[in-house]
């Protein structure tokens, strides 16, 4: 087993554990903290898979931005103690059942389709240019139109969020 593989499996296992902790915490703040850890470890696996830029973006946007935003909102709406909410057992069992079946089925498909194929061929090509440079070049040339559309989408989301969250009484 190479170092890369060891790091991947370690980070993947930690990411799965923290993901599971995220969805099982009662307290939303604890869940958010677990989510940050989970995202960190996913970013770690990205590095092994030759996606350094994406790893950095993952940490900055998710861990820094999205979860940070969630924590703010959690603090903002502390009207009732969310941790007291009881869980419906029936729905929980069905959800678990569906999730497990999904993993088994997808796993079997993937295993039938891609068995014996290894990742990492990107590495040699990347070495010449560097991950960030090649992504940046593509993003500003071939994918310039989707890129601009994405920026418009973000603008729309921003405007929408402000409109939704604005207190109507202030108008």
């Amino acid at each position: 087993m190479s170092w890369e593989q060891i790091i991947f499996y370690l980070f993947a296992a930690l990411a799965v554990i923290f993901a599971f902790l995220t969805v099982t915490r009662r307290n939303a703040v604890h869940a958010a903290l677990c989510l940050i850890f989970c995202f960190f470890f996913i970013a770690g696996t990205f590095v092994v898979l030759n996606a350094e830029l994406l790893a950095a973006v993952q940490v900055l946007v998710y861990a820094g931005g999205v979860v940070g935003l969630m924590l703010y909102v959690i603090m903002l709406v502390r009207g009732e103690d969310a941790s007291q909410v009881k869980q419906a057992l029936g729905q929980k069992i069905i959800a678990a059942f569906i999730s497990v079946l999904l993993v088994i089925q997808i796993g079997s498909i993937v295993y039938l389709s891609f068995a014996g194929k290894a990742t990492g061929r990107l590495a040699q090509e990347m070495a010449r240019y560097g991950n960030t440079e090649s992504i940046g070049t593509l993003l500003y040339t071939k994918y310039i139109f989707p890129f601009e559309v994405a920026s418009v989408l973000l603008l729309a989301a921003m405007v929408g969020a402000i409109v939704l969250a604005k207190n109507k009484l202030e108008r």
Partner: protein
Amino acid sequence: MVPLTHVIIFSFIIFAIGMFGALSRRNVFIVLMGIELMLNAVNIALVGFSSYLSNVAGQIFAIFVITVAAGEAAVGLAIVVAIFRNRFTVNIDSFNLLKW
């Protein structure tokens, strides 16, 4: 080198956990976190295939997914704030207006 199957299965485990969280929890924040996990699972699959096919396009799509996820989180949280202002709760069971 990491086998592609393991990357994809890792991605789907995260996806399933995210889905489980989104489906089973009643705290709307944890539902949103579950959705974020599901989107991240997609990113893992994209990065894995990108590395396997030695094509950077997958990573670019992952960046777009992150963009969408950020927008989704912003709007979703704004909706939570708006609903909280009206109903004073973040329990997803109180979001039951779809019946009408």
